[in-house]
């Protein structure tokens, strides 16, 4: 019946789209509210449908966004999608809180060596392999358009940089949905979060160097790297302060937790932007400190999890609605090559790290598939490149956006299958327990 109701809501959205009443009815805020409500229902039903064929629910959320978005059915126009993107930061802040809260020191200690090795190895492999191929391609095709050699090197570095990044949001969403627990889960979450921090520092260096390479008349701004370092350090300090304040609230008041968590996230996002800090790092640090250094970690995480479904549906549905199928259609072969290269470099990097740290076969052979999700940080870097050098940046941005679209579709599916294969999902734990009882 939910599907039938959703079809009726579809019809309603079509009516709104077709009968653009105009005049007093053409209120973009009202259309945004309707779009927001509709996306929640569409995402919920799509999530249920795909979970029946063992796909992660977030794939359903993405698909619902793609179908309803401006590039397919157009039930939500670009204006509505852009307005809804203002919710993105709130969603990301909550996801970052969860990511931080999922990192347990004692469990990290066990997987710490492997996490560090995989992070470095994957980053190095993808940067070198993807960067080299992109550089060679740029040199080959660049001759025709007269691209200088240094600019080709910069382009190679940019591609290497963006492909190294992962998507903590995807990892957290799949882990929360499947309620996974275990060594591989800790490792995937640890690598994804750590890599985001590493990429943040790395990006400051590469972007500065790349900016100078594409335009050697500019001076090399070393100060930018120091600024990023300082901002990151301050973000961690701010995260610790936020954790202390949250812990005080949890100790003395502990009421209206959902409202409190939402308000706190918004305040952190706002203040971080205001004083130029990285709100994701602030929220991750806060979540990590509360989980590991206070007695209130469970209270915080359970309050966030009460809103998680709404947050994930809207975040991934908007991400789906933002996938530009026009661009994807025009350059999908190049994007696909980038996706394959990235996957191969991750596989290689993970295998080497596994060999060095004495990892299991599961880690060495299959765990690379848990890192395919790609989103926010890659898009952010691509936007900065576009801003810095519009000519070269526009082509780069288009390819990156198209490859992110593909990775966002395959990433969650691959991660869910990996966690199932490793037997770390709640379903496997229950089956094991039931099996154990029968055997007894």
């Amino acid at each position, binding site marked *: *019946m*939910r599907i*039938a*109701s959703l079809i*009726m*809501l579809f019809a*309603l959205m079509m009516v*709104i789209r077709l009968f653009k*009443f*105009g*005049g*007093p*009815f053409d*209120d973009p*805020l*009202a*259309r*945004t*509210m*309707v*779009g*927001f*409500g*509709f996306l*929640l*229902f569409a995402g*919920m039903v799509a999530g249920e449908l795909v979970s029946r064929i063992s796909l992660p629910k977030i794939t359903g959320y993405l698909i619902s966004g793609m179908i309803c978005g401006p590039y397919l059915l157009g039930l939500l126009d670009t204006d509505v999608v852009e307005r809804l993107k203002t919710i993105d930061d709130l969603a990301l802040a909550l996801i970052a809180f969860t990511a931080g809260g999922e990192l347990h020191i004692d469990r990290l200690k066990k997987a710490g060596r492997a996490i560090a090795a995989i992070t470095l190895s994957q980053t190095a492999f993808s940067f070198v392999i993807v960067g080299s191929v992109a550089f060679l391609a740029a040199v080959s095709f660049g001759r025709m358009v007269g691209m200088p050699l240094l600019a080709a090197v910069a382009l190679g570095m940019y591609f290497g940089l963006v492909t190294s990044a992962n998507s903590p949001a995807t990892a957290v969403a799949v882990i929360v949905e499947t309620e996974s627990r275990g060594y591989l889960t800790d490792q995937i979450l640890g690598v994804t979060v750590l890599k985001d921090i590493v990429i943040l520092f790395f990006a400051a260096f590469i972007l500065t160097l790349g900016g100078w390479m594409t335009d050697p008349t500019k001076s090399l701004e070393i100060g930018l790297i120091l600024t990023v370092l300082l901002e990151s350090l301050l973000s961690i300090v701010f995260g610790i302060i936020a954790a202390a304040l949250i812990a005080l609230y949890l100790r003395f*008041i502990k*009421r*209206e937790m*959902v*409202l*409190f968590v939402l*308000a706190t996230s*918004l*305040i952190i996002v*706002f203040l971080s932007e205001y004083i130029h800090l990285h709100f994701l790092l602030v929220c991750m640090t806060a979540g990590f400190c509360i989980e590991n250094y206070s007695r209130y970690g469970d209270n915080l995480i359970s309050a966030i*999890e*009460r*809103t*998680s*479904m*709404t947050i994930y*549906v809207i975040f991934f549905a908007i991400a789906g609605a933002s996938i530009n199928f026009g661009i994807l259609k025009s350059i999908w072969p190049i994007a696909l090559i980038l996706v394959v290269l990235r996957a191969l470099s991750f596989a290689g990097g993970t295998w080497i790290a596994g060999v060095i740290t004495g990892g299991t076969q599961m880690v060495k052979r299959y765990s690379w598939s848990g890192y395919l999700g790609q989103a926010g940080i890659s898009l952010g870097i691509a936007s900065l490149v576009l801003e810095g050098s519009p000519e070269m940046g526009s082509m780069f941005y288009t390819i990156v956006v198209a490859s992110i679209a593909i990775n966002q579709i395959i990433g969650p599916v691959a991660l869910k299958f990996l966690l199932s294969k490793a037997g770390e999902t709640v379903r496997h734990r229950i089956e094991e327990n039931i099996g154990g009882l029968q055997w007894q």
Partner: protein
Amino acid sequence: METVILILILVLVSYMLGERAFRVHRLHLESILFVAYGIEFILVGILLGPYALGLLSADVIDRLEPLINIALGWIGLMFGFQFRFKDLKLLPTSNYLIAGIESSITFIVVLVAMLSATMIFISDFITPLGAIQTALIIAAIAMVSSPAVIAAVIKQVRSHGRVSRLLRYITGFDNIIGVITFGLAYPFFHITSRASSVTIPGWGWLLISIAVGLALGMLFHFFTTPRASSNENLMIAVGMVALSSGLASYLSLSALFINLIVGIVLCNYSERQDRFYRLLISAEKPLYGVLLIIAGALWRATWLMAVLAAIFILFRATAKTLGTWASLRNYSSIVRNPGWLGTALIAQGGIALAIALDFRFLAPGEISNLIVSITLTGLTINAFVCPFTAKHVLKIEGEIA
């Protein structure tokens, strides 16, 4: 963004202060009501408004329209959930008759008084149609009583008996009559009814309001299941309110009224919705806080407002007293002193403010701002007076131990 953050911080702080103060049981009844009925939120709103900091200007408030519409929709949905016909059938018919007669008399008296007042005091900048609209909206607001104040007084003085129960029923029923009257009256002044491009008559908009509420209620019914987790329920509730309030806003109809119908349909069609209702109720106080802050920022102290508010308060109190007395004439066995009972009904609750704000966003302008100011003034004064009058009524009826 800055304003939203500021409001969030203030709502959070005032809410926490309110909660802390409310838990101090040694406070006197009136002091508790002072905190419980959100005067601190109103003060925060006034502080943020043009009289002090000027952060919540009319432009900023207009930008907050989606947030306010969602708050109004949530209140409407929550309110509609209280009207399960199966439960309502259990109450004696006399309760409905008493509440119906009392609120009808209040409506007529306040309508005539406010119509006369607007014609006398603001005839220069209001059309006759505008005067009728203003009087109708204020009269609908006047019908509303506050079950929360009565419940708090009854709890505080530990009264029990037929009058205590009757007061609870009447105040609860007054609310729905007020919202329905507003929902029925507003479409006749719908913005596009006066525009040349769309020629849907007032009754057409009324039918559209009801049809949209019923249709959405039926559609949402299939999404709400007793099996749903709290996570899923929250998403369904947010989705429902956003969609129906957005649609109401898109059609320039009342979000409060449409969501009320959605709530009524849902609670009557779906069984075992207690968990869903509890979820809706959990957001009541913060949402009420937001509305009070917005109303506080919209409040304007002018002589005209003071005169109209005085007329409103006096005629409303008189009408409530008269109305209750008239309605109780056939039920003398229930109440010993029917002449006084109406004085216990003068407190106005959040629904009165919700109606005023709903109208403010449907028809923005000086007149709707004036209505918000009158309602807020009445709400504040009545919140101070009602605990005394209600206590007095319960005392003379012999229901205080």
